[in-house]
Protein backbone atom coordinates (compact mmCIF):
# COMPACT_ATOMS: atom_id res chain seq x y z
CA UNK A 1 0.00 0.00 0.00
CA UNK A 2 1.52 3.24 -1.11
CA UNK A 3 0.51 6.08 1.09
CA UNK A 4 3.37 8.52 1.10
CA UNK A 5 4.84 9.83 4.29
CA UNK A 6 2.90 10.38 7.51
CA UNK A 7 4.62 12.12 10.38
CA UNK A 8 2.95 12.43 13.77
CA UNK A 9 4.18 14.51 16.68
CA UNK A 10 7.83 14.40 15.61
CA UNK A 11 10.28 15.92 18.08
CA UNK A 12 14.03 16.03 17.69
CA UNK A 13 16.89 17.15 19.90
CA UNK A 14 20.58 17.82 19.65
CA UNK A 15 21.64 17.19 23.24
CA UNK A 16 19.32 19.47 25.19
CA UNK A 17 18.53 21.67 22.20
CA UNK A 18 14.95 21.04 21.06
CA UNK A 19 15.16 21.56 17.28
CA UNK A 20 11.90 20.06 16.03
CA UNK A 21 8.66 20.55 17.92
CA UNK A 22 5.59 18.45 17.26
CA UNK A 23 5.83 18.21 13.49
CA UNK A 24 2.77 16.80 11.69
CA UNK A 25 3.00 16.05 7.98
CA UNK A 26 1.10 13.89 5.54
CA UNK A 27 2.21 13.67 1.94
CA UNK A 28 0.76 11.92 -1.07
CA UNK A 29 2.71 9.05 -2.62
CA UNK A 30 4.63 9.70 -5.83
CA UNK A 31 4.52 13.42 -5.22
CA UNK A 32 7.06 16.10 -4.48
CA UNK A 33 6.92 17.82 -1.12
CA UNK A 34 9.01 20.92 -0.59
CA UNK A 35 10.21 22.15 2.78
CA UNK A 36 11.05 25.84 3.01
CA UNK A 37 12.11 28.10 5.84
CA UNK A 38 15.03 30.19 7.03
CA UNK A 39 18.41 28.67 7.89
CA UNK A 40 18.51 26.80 11.17
CA UNK A 41 14.77 26.25 11.34
CA UNK A 42 15.07 22.46 11.35
CA UNK A 43 14.35 21.68 7.70
CA UNK A 44 17.39 19.47 7.25
CA UNK A 45 16.89 17.86 10.64
CA UNK A 46 13.34 17.07 9.62
CA UNK A 47 14.24 15.16 6.49
CA UNK A 48 17.14 13.47 8.28
CA UNK A 49 14.58 12.16 10.76
CA UNK A 50 12.70 10.52 7.89
CA UNK A 51 15.51 8.07 7.09
CA UNK A 52 16.98 7.86 10.57
CA UNK A 53 20.07 9.86 9.68
CA UNK A 54 19.45 12.28 12.54
CA UNK A 55 20.50 9.73 15.15
CA UNK A 56 23.91 9.37 13.49
CA UNK A 57 24.95 12.63 15.16
CA UNK A 58 26.21 12.01 18.73
CA UNK A 59 23.71 13.25 21.32
CA UNK A 60 20.83 13.44 18.85
CA UNK A 61 17.41 12.10 19.85
CA UNK A 62 14.04 11.66 18.17
CA UNK A 63 10.51 10.94 19.40
CA UNK A 64 7.26 10.56 17.48
CA UNK A 65 6.01 8.45 14.63
CA UNK A 66 7.16 8.43 11.02
CA UNK A 67 5.26 6.18 8.63
CA UNK A 68 6.84 5.79 5.23
CA UNK A 69 4.70 3.86 2.74
CA UNK A 70 2.78 2.51 5.69
CA UNK A 71 5.76 1.29 7.69
CA UNK A 72 6.80 2.77 10.99
CA UNK A 73 10.42 3.84 10.58
CA UNK A 74 10.97 4.11 14.33
CA UNK A 75 9.20 0.91 15.36
CA UNK A 76 11.25 -1.19 17.78
CA UNK A 77 13.24 -3.83 15.94
CA UNK A 78 13.48 -1.83 12.73
CA UNK A 79 17.06 -1.69 11.49
CA UNK A 80 18.03 1.84 10.39
CA UNK A 81 20.12 0.23 7.65
CA UNK A 82 16.97 -1.20 6.03
CA UNK A 83 15.18 2.13 6.41
CA UNK A 84 17.98 4.00 4.64
CA UNK A 85 18.05 1.47 1.88
CA UNK A 86 14.44 2.24 1.07
CA UNK A 87 14.76 5.98 1.59
CA UNK A 88 17.57 7.46 -0.46
CA UNK A 89 19.17 10.79 0.29
CA UNK A 90 20.95 13.48 -1.69
CA UNK A 91 22.96 16.08 0.18
CA UNK A 92 23.56 19.77 -0.19
CA UNK A 93 27.13 19.33 -1.34
CA UNK A 94 27.83 16.70 -3.95
CA UNK A 95 29.83 14.00 -2.21
CA UNK A 96 30.99 11.32 -4.62
CA UNK A 97 33.37 8.79 -3.07
CA UNK A 98 36.83 10.11 -3.99
CA UNK A 99 38.48 6.70 -4.26
CA UNK A 100 35.92 5.41 -6.74
CA UNK A 101 35.29 5.87 -10.45
CA UNK A 102 32.00 7.13 -11.87
CA UNK A 103 30.87 3.54 -12.35
CA UNK A 104 31.96 2.43 -8.89
CA UNK A 105 30.22 5.41 -7.30
CA UNK A 106 26.89 4.51 -8.83
CA UNK A 107 27.40 0.80 -8.16
CA UNK A 108 28.57 1.41 -4.58
CA UNK A 109 25.21 0.85 -2.87
CA UNK A 110 24.65 -2.47 -4.64
CA UNK A 111 28.23 -3.64 -4.67
CA UNK A 112 28.94 -2.97 -1.02
CA UNK A 113 25.68 -4.67 -0.12
CA UNK A 114 26.96 -7.82 -1.80
CA UNK A 115 25.93 -7.74 -5.47
CA UNK A 116 28.81 -9.24 -7.47
CA UNK A 117 27.18 -10.07 -10.77
CA UNK A 118 28.81 -7.82 -13.34
CA UNK A 119 25.84 -7.88 -15.72
CA UNK A 120 23.43 -6.86 -12.96
CA UNK A 121 25.75 -4.04 -11.90
CA UNK A 122 26.24 -2.80 -15.48
CA UNK A 123 22.54 -2.70 -16.02
CA UNK A 124 21.79 -0.99 -12.70
CA UNK A 125 24.46 1.64 -13.30
CA UNK A 126 23.23 2.42 -16.79
CA UNK A 127 19.63 2.59 -15.59
CA UNK A 128 20.47 4.84 -12.64
CA UNK A 129 22.63 7.17 -14.72
CA UNK A 130 19.97 7.37 -17.43
CA UNK A 131 17.39 8.05 -14.76
CA UNK A 132 19.58 10.82 -13.36
CA UNK A 133 20.00 12.30 -16.87
CA UNK A 134 23.74 11.80 -16.75
CA UNK A 135 24.28 8.72 -18.89
CA UNK A 136 24.91 10.56 -22.18
CA UNK A 137 27.47 12.83 -20.56
CA UNK A 138 29.52 10.17 -18.78
CA UNK A 139 29.03 6.97 -20.81
CA UNK A 140 32.54 7.30 -22.23
CA UNK A 141 34.24 8.03 -18.94
CA UNK A 142 32.73 5.61 -16.50
CA UNK A 143 36.22 4.64 -15.35
CA UNK A 144 37.32 8.16 -14.51
CA UNK A 145 37.27 9.53 -10.98
CA UNK A 146 33.82 10.59 -9.81
CA UNK A 147 35.38 13.79 -8.55
CA UNK A 148 36.60 14.68 -12.07
CA UNK A 149 33.08 15.64 -13.10
CA UNK A 150 31.70 19.18 -12.90
CA UNK A 151 29.71 20.28 -9.85
CA UNK A 152 26.32 19.79 -11.49
CA UNK A 153 27.36 16.43 -12.88
CA UNK A 154 28.68 15.37 -9.48
CA UNK A 155 25.32 16.17 -7.92
CA UNK A 156 23.52 14.13 -10.57
CA UNK A 157 26.07 11.39 -9.96
CA UNK A 158 25.05 11.42 -6.30
CA UNK A 159 21.40 11.25 -7.34
CA UNK A 160 22.23 8.30 -9.60
CA UNK A 161 24.07 6.66 -6.72
CA UNK A 162 20.99 7.02 -4.53
CA UNK A 163 18.69 5.78 -7.32
CA UNK A 164 20.79 2.70 -8.07
CA UNK A 165 19.56 0.92 -4.93
CA UNK A 166 15.97 1.59 -6.07
CA UNK A 167 14.58 3.46 -3.09
CA UNK A 168 10.88 4.16 -2.66
CA UNK A 169 11.49 7.65 -1.35
CA UNK A 170 14.16 10.21 -2.21
CA UNK A 171 15.11 12.93 0.26
CA UNK A 172 16.95 15.93 -1.14
CA UNK A 173 18.64 18.37 1.18
CA UNK A 174 19.11 21.62 -0.77
CA UNK A 175 20.44 19.71 -3.77
CA UNK A 176 20.86 22.81 -5.92
CA UNK A 177 22.24 25.35 -3.49
CA UNK A 178 25.79 24.98 -4.81
CA UNK A 179 24.82 24.84 -8.49
CA UNK A 180 24.48 27.39 -11.26
CA UNK A 181 21.02 28.06 -12.80
CA UNK A 182 21.58 25.71 -15.74
CA UNK A 183 22.60 22.80 -13.55
CA UNK A 184 19.72 23.68 -11.23
CA UNK A 185 17.26 23.59 -14.12
CA UNK A 186 18.55 20.14 -15.05
CA UNK A 187 18.04 18.84 -11.54
CA UNK A 188 14.55 20.32 -11.39
CA UNK A 189 13.64 18.66 -14.67
CA UNK A 190 14.98 15.48 -13.20
CA UNK A 191 12.81 15.83 -10.09
CA UNK A 192 9.71 16.24 -12.23
CA UNK A 193 10.72 13.09 -14.09
CA UNK A 194 11.52 11.10 -10.95
CA UNK A 195 8.24 11.79 -9.23
CA UNK A 196 6.57 9.35 -11.59
CA UNK A 197 8.26 6.55 -9.64
CA UNK A 198 9.23 8.04 -6.31
CA UNK A 199 7.98 10.01 -3.38
CA UNK A 200 10.29 13.00 -3.07
CA UNK A 201 10.89 15.41 -0.23
CA UNK A 202 13.09 18.37 -1.08
CA UNK A 203 14.47 21.00 1.25
CA UNK A 204 15.16 24.26 -0.51
CA UNK A 205 15.98 27.88 0.14
CA UNK A 206 14.72 28.79 -3.26
CA UNK A 207 10.99 29.51 -3.13
CA UNK A 208 10.61 29.64 -6.89
CA UNK A 209 12.08 26.19 -6.95
CA UNK A 210 9.60 24.94 -4.38
CA UNK A 211 6.78 26.48 -6.41
CA UNK A 212 8.08 24.93 -9.64
CA UNK A 213 8.64 21.36 -8.56
CA UNK A 214 6.37 20.53 -5.65
CA UNK A 215 2.73 19.65 -5.09
CA UNK A 216 2.80 20.31 -1.37
CA UNK A 217 4.94 22.67 0.67
CA UNK A 218 5.70 22.94 4.35
CA UNK A 219 6.98 26.13 5.96
CA UNK A 220 9.23 25.70 8.98
CA UNK A 221 10.17 28.36 11.48
CA UNK A 222 12.24 27.88 14.63
CA UNK A 223 11.62 24.15 14.74
CA UNK A 224 7.90 24.35 14.22
CA UNK A 225 5.85 23.64 11.17
CA UNK A 226 3.93 26.85 10.67
CA UNK A 227 1.96 25.80 7.63
CA UNK A 228 1.64 22.79 5.41
CA UNK A 229 -0.54 22.64 2.33
CA UNK A 230 -0.89 22.57 -1.41
CA UNK A 231 2.01 24.50 -2.89
CA UNK A 232 -0.04 26.88 -5.00
CA UNK A 233 -2.29 27.80 -2.11
CA UNK A 234 0.57 28.25 0.29
CA UNK A 235 2.30 30.66 -2.05
CA UNK A 236 -0.77 32.57 -3.30
CA UNK A 237 -2.95 32.51 -0.25
CA UNK A 238 -1.03 31.65 2.93
CA UNK A 239 -3.13 31.07 6.01
CA UNK A 240 -0.50 32.23 8.46
CA UNK A 241 0.87 35.74 8.71
CA UNK A 242 4.42 34.43 9.28
CA UNK A 243 4.28 32.35 6.09
CA UNK A 244 3.14 35.41 4.17
CA UNK A 245 5.96 37.49 5.62
CA UNK A 246 8.50 34.85 4.69
CA UNK A 247 7.39 34.22 1.13
CA UNK A 248 7.06 37.90 0.38
CA UNK A 249 10.51 38.53 1.80
CA UNK A 250 9.33 40.86 4.54
CA UNK A 251 10.79 38.76 7.28
CA UNK A 252 12.51 40.34 10.24
Amino acid at each position, binding site marked *: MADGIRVRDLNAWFGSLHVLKGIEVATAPKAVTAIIGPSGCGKSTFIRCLNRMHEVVPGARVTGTVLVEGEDVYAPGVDPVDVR*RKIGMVFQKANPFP*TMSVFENVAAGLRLAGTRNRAVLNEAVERALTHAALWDEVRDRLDQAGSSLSGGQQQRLCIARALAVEPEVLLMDEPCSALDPIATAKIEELILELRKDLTIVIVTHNMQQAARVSEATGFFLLGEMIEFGVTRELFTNPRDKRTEDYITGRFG
Partner: protein
Amino acid sequence: MTSSSVRTRAFRTVLACSALASCLGLPLGILGGVYLTESRDRRLPWLIRFTADVLNGVPSIVIGIFAYTVVVLPMRRFSALAGGVALAVIMLPIVVRTTEEMMRLVPGSLREAALALGLPEWKVILRVVLPTARAGIITGVMVAIARIAGETAPLLFTAFGNRFWHQGPDQPIAALPLQIFAYAIAPYDDWHRQAWAGALVLILLVFLVSLAARVATRGRYSAVR
Protein backbone atom coordinates in the same frame (compact mmCIF):
# COMPACT_ATOMS: atom_id res chain seq x y z
CA MET B 1 75.35 -23.60 0.84
CA THR B 2 74.46 -21.90 -2.45
CA SER B 3 74.79 -18.18 -2.60
CA SER B 4 71.06 -17.63 -3.23
CA SER B 5 70.12 -19.53 -0.10
CA VAL B 6 72.72 -17.52 1.78
CA ARG B 7 71.06 -14.41 0.50
CA THR B 8 67.54 -15.47 1.49
CA ARG B 9 68.71 -16.52 4.90
CA ALA B 10 70.55 -13.26 5.37
CA PHE B 11 67.47 -11.40 4.30
CA ARG B 12 65.24 -13.39 6.63
CA THR B 13 67.63 -12.85 9.49
CA VAL B 14 67.98 -9.13 8.95
CA LEU B 15 64.24 -8.57 8.63
CA ALA B 16 62.94 -11.14 11.10
CA CYS B 17 62.42 -8.79 14.04
CA SER B 18 60.91 -5.99 11.95
CA ALA B 19 58.62 -8.43 10.14
CA LEU B 20 57.47 -10.03 13.38
CA ALA B 21 56.89 -6.60 14.85
CA SER B 22 54.85 -5.55 11.81
CA CYS B 23 52.73 -8.70 11.99
CA LEU B 24 51.93 -7.91 15.61
CA GLY B 25 51.87 -4.13 15.57
CA LEU B 26 50.14 -3.19 12.32
CA PRO B 27 46.81 -5.04 12.66
CA LEU B 28 46.55 -4.09 16.31
CA GLY B 29 47.53 -0.48 15.59
CA ILE B 30 45.09 -0.03 12.71
CA LEU B 31 42.27 -1.65 14.67
CA GLY B 32 43.09 0.64 17.57
CA GLY B 33 43.00 3.69 15.32
CA VAL B 34 39.63 2.63 13.92
CA TYR B 35 38.32 2.13 17.45
CA LEU B 36 39.50 5.60 18.53
CA THR B 37 37.79 7.21 15.54
CA GLU B 38 34.54 5.31 15.70
CA SER B 39 33.89 4.81 19.40
CA ARG B 40 31.09 6.87 20.85
CA ASP B 41 32.42 6.29 24.32
CA ARG B 42 34.53 9.11 25.71
CA ARG B 43 36.58 7.88 28.61
CA LEU B 44 38.26 4.78 27.20
CA PRO B 45 39.35 6.41 23.91
CA TRP B 46 40.71 9.32 25.89
CA LEU B 47 42.71 6.93 28.06
CA ILE B 48 44.01 5.00 25.03
CA ARG B 49 44.99 8.19 23.24
CA PHE B 50 46.80 9.47 26.31
CA THR B 51 48.56 6.15 26.85
CA ALA B 52 49.60 6.00 23.20
CA ASP B 53 51.06 9.50 23.37
CA VAL B 54 52.99 8.64 26.53
CA LEU B 55 54.16 5.37 25.03
CA ASN B 56 55.35 7.26 21.99
CA GLY B 57 57.68 9.23 24.20
CA VAL B 58 59.02 6.34 26.27
CA PRO B 59 62.74 5.67 25.57
CA SER B 60 63.06 2.53 23.50
CA ILE B 61 65.38 0.84 26.00
CA VAL B 62 62.58 0.91 28.56
CA ILE B 63 60.39 -0.90 26.07
CA GLY B 64 63.22 -3.41 25.69
CA ILE B 65 63.11 -4.05 29.44
CA PHE B 66 59.36 -4.50 29.20
CA ALA B 67 59.72 -7.14 26.46
CA TYR B 68 62.50 -8.75 28.49
CA THR B 69 60.13 -9.09 31.43
CA VAL B 70 57.07 -10.34 29.59
CA VAL B 71 58.69 -12.53 26.92
CA VAL B 72 62.33 -13.35 27.67
CA LEU B 73 61.93 -14.25 31.34
CA PRO B 74 58.92 -16.58 30.93
CA MET B 75 60.51 -18.25 27.89
CA ARG B 76 63.89 -18.43 29.64
CA ARG B 77 65.73 -17.43 26.49
CA PHE B 78 66.39 -14.51 24.19
CA SER B 79 64.44 -14.82 20.98
CA ALA B 80 63.44 -13.21 17.71
CA LEU B 81 59.91 -13.18 19.10
CA ALA B 82 60.95 -11.06 22.07
CA GLY B 83 62.64 -8.60 19.72
CA GLY B 84 59.50 -8.53 17.59
CA VAL B 85 57.32 -7.80 20.62
CA ALA B 86 59.59 -4.95 21.72
CA LEU B 87 59.54 -3.36 18.27
CA ALA B 88 55.78 -3.90 17.96
CA VAL B 89 55.26 -1.95 21.18
CA ILE B 90 57.33 0.89 19.70
CA MET B 91 55.37 1.03 16.45
CA LEU B 92 51.95 0.58 18.03
CA PRO B 93 51.35 4.17 19.20
CA ILE B 94 52.58 5.62 15.91
CA VAL B 95 50.24 3.43 13.89
CA VAL B 96 47.28 3.96 16.23
CA ARG B 97 47.59 7.73 16.18
CA THR B 98 48.21 8.17 12.44
CA THR B 99 45.35 5.82 11.59
CA GLU B 100 43.08 7.85 13.83
CA GLU B 101 44.22 11.21 12.44
CA MET B 102 43.88 10.06 8.84
CA MET B 103 40.42 8.60 9.40
CA ARG B 104 39.33 11.85 11.00
CA LEU B 105 40.40 13.71 7.87
CA VAL B 106 37.84 11.80 5.83
CA PRO B 107 34.93 14.23 5.39
CA GLY B 108 31.83 13.37 7.40
CA SER B 109 29.78 13.88 4.26
CA LEU B 110 31.27 10.72 2.71
CA ARG B 111 30.38 8.72 5.77
CA GLU B 112 26.84 10.11 5.64
CA ALA B 113 26.52 9.41 1.93
CA ALA B 114 27.50 5.80 2.52
CA LEU B 115 25.17 5.42 5.51
CA ALA B 116 22.32 6.95 3.50
CA LEU B 117 22.81 4.24 0.87
CA GLY B 118 21.74 1.74 3.49
CA LEU B 119 25.14 0.31 4.30
CA PRO B 120 25.85 -0.99 7.80
CA GLU B 121 28.38 1.02 9.76
CA TRP B 122 31.15 -1.57 9.63
CA LYS B 123 30.93 -1.65 5.84
CA VAL B 124 31.03 2.12 5.68
CA ILE B 125 34.25 2.05 7.69
CA LEU B 126 35.80 -0.85 5.80
CA ARG B 127 34.83 0.07 2.26
CA VAL B 128 34.55 3.85 2.25
CA VAL B 129 36.39 5.48 5.16
CA LEU B 130 39.49 3.26 5.28
CA PRO B 131 40.06 3.30 1.49
CA THR B 132 39.74 7.08 1.48
CA ALA B 133 42.28 7.35 4.30
CA ARG B 134 44.46 4.60 2.79
CA ALA B 135 47.31 6.78 1.55
CA GLY B 136 47.72 8.53 4.89
CA ILE B 137 47.58 5.31 6.85
CA ILE B 138 50.20 3.68 4.62
CA THR B 139 52.46 6.67 5.15
CA GLY B 140 52.08 6.27 8.91
CA VAL B 141 52.80 2.57 8.67
CA MET B 142 55.95 3.23 6.64
CA VAL B 143 57.11 5.82 9.15
CA ALA B 144 56.62 3.27 11.91
CA ILE B 145 58.54 0.59 10.00
CA ALA B 146 61.36 2.99 9.23
CA ARG B 147 61.47 3.90 12.89
CA ILE B 148 61.78 0.34 14.18
CA ALA B 149 64.18 -0.71 11.42
CA GLY B 150 66.93 1.26 13.09
CA GLU B 151 66.12 0.55 16.74
CA THR B 152 69.04 -1.02 18.60
CA ALA B 153 68.49 -0.60 22.30
CA PRO B 154 65.31 -2.68 22.70
CA LEU B 155 66.96 -5.55 20.83
CA LEU B 156 70.01 -5.75 23.11
CA PHE B 157 68.35 -7.99 25.65
CA THR B 158 65.47 -9.39 23.59
CA ALA B 159 66.74 -10.58 20.19
CA PHE B 160 70.21 -10.53 21.73
CA GLY B 161 72.07 -11.11 18.48
CA ASN B 162 73.42 -14.30 17.01
CA ARG B 163 76.50 -15.16 14.99
CA PHE B 164 74.55 -17.79 13.07
CA TRP B 165 71.71 -17.78 10.60
CA HIS B 166 68.08 -17.59 11.46
CA GLN B 167 67.18 -20.60 13.62
CA GLY B 168 63.52 -20.07 14.34
CA PRO B 169 61.48 -17.40 16.08
CA ASP B 170 62.17 -18.82 19.56
CA GLN B 171 65.93 -18.47 19.22
CA PRO B 172 68.22 -15.46 19.58
CA ILE B 173 68.66 -13.75 16.25
CA ALA B 174 70.94 -11.23 14.60
CA ALA B 175 69.49 -7.86 13.75
CA LEU B 176 71.14 -5.29 11.55
CA PRO B 177 71.32 -2.39 14.01
CA LEU B 178 72.56 -4.78 16.69
CA GLN B 179 75.23 -6.10 14.37
CA ILE B 180 76.34 -2.58 13.50
CA PHE B 181 76.60 -1.83 17.20
CA ALA B 182 78.62 -4.98 17.89
CA TYR B 183 81.01 -4.30 15.01
CA ALA B 184 81.36 -0.62 15.78
CA ILE B 185 82.47 -1.12 19.41
CA ALA B 186 84.99 -3.80 18.46
CA PRO B 187 88.65 -2.75 18.36
CA TYR B 188 89.37 -3.96 14.81
CA ASP B 189 89.52 -1.85 11.70
CA ASP B 190 87.93 -4.45 9.44
CA TRP B 191 85.03 -4.83 11.89
CA HIS B 192 84.56 -1.07 11.75
CA ARG B 193 84.35 -1.31 7.98
CA GLN B 194 81.68 -4.00 8.40
CA ALA B 195 79.79 -1.64 10.68
CA TRP B 196 79.89 1.09 8.01
CA ALA B 197 78.66 -1.38 5.40
CA GLY B 198 75.87 -2.47 7.70
CA ALA B 199 74.87 1.14 8.27
CA LEU B 200 74.74 1.69 4.53
CA VAL B 201 72.50 -1.35 4.09
CA LEU B 202 70.23 -0.10 6.87
CA ILE B 203 69.91 3.32 5.30
CA LEU B 204 69.17 1.74 1.92
CA LEU B 205 66.45 -0.38 3.52
CA VAL B 206 64.81 2.67 5.08
CA PHE B 207 65.13 4.45 1.74
CA LEU B 208 63.41 1.54 0.00
CA VAL B 209 60.61 1.58 2.54
CA SER B 210 60.04 5.31 1.94
CA LEU B 211 60.12 4.74 -1.80
CA ALA B 212 57.59 1.93 -1.46
CA ALA B 213 55.37 4.27 0.55
CA ARG B 214 55.52 6.85 -2.24
CA VAL B 215 54.52 4.30 -4.83
CA ALA B 216 51.82 2.74 -2.66
CA THR B 217 50.18 6.05 -1.80
CA ARG B 218 50.07 7.37 -5.34
CA GLY B 219 46.63 5.80 -5.71
CA ARG B 220 44.29 5.94 -8.65
CA TYR B 221 42.53 9.13 -7.71
CA SER B 222 43.43 11.79 -5.23
CA ALA B 223 42.36 11.13 -1.67
CA VAL B 224 43.23 12.26 1.82
CA ARG B 225 46.98 12.37 2.09
